[in-house]
């Protein structure tokens, strides 16, 4: 066999051997599992994944804080509205009581005025005054009502 044939035989043998190794590799290689995938990620990719998870966690915490603050603000607004309504009711009640007092004062003022006129009548006597202005009945505890 010539030198060229020997060379061709050697090169062909090497290539065929490499092909046989690749074929064995294809058949014997186990399927990559999730654990292997994690193991084979480069450090940079794992670091990126970790940073992304941290960012997501802090974003979720900030969103929760914002929701809590919004709920507190709504509660405060509701309390304020209740206080305003209470104040409005008290004002209305005070105005009603004031009106009642004013009527009583007007009535007392009129009666007083009438009494003063009767006292100053030339024909008025003490006995007639006692008839016009009777003693009020005694109260339950004996004091004048």
């Amino acid at each position, binding site marked *: *066999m*010539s030198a*060229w*044939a020997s*060379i*061709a*035989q050697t*090169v*062909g*043998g*090497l*290539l*065929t051997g*490499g*092909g*046989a*190794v*690749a*074929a064995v*590799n*294809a*058949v014997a*290689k186990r399927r*990559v599992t999730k654990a292997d995938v994690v193991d*084979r*990620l*480069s*450090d*940079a*990719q794992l670091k990126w994944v970790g940073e992304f998870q941290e960012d997501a966690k802090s974003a979720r915490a900030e969103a929760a804080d914002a929701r809590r603050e919004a709920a507190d603000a709504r509660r405060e607004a509701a309390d304020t509205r209740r206080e305003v309504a209470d104040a409005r009711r008290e004002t209305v009640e005070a105005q009603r009581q004031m009106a009642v007092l004013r009527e009583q004062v007007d009535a007392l003022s009129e009666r007083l005025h009438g009494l003063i006129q009767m006292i100053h009548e030339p024909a008025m006597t003490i006995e007639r005054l006692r008839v016009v202005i009777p003693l009020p009945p005694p109260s339950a505890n004996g004091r004048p009502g």
Partner: protein
Amino acid sequence: MTQPGGPRPVVIVTGRHRPHQVLFVGLSFVLGMAYTVGAPPPQSLAALMPAWLVHVWAIGLLASGVLGGVSLAIADRPERGLWLEAAAMLIGAGALVVALVAIFVFAGWRGLFGAGITAAWAGANLWRAWQIRRDLTAVEYGGGAR
């Protein structure tokens, strides 16, 4: 997502079978089967190589065709299919290098056309095997030290 200098992604796309590759795999199978079952071998090979080597050469062509056909048919295990394809390419290249040398030694420059086609075929096989090994190794090792 790729980074400069980072691992190359392996992209498996539909219609990845190139016609030239498929036909040459088929030709390898047909020629290998023919020469294995007894068809007269090429004169160049018969003149240069011992009989046992001619048989080994024919079996190599047949094996390349078989492995190549199986690799093209595997759809659910792309990684295994690519390794089988690389095996087929290397075995085929080995047989083609033997035939290439035999043509040049036997026929000289008169065998330029046949030798040229054989050399291009062997070169394409080696290129494809290198592509597969490079990309599958990059996927396995993630571009970093293991």
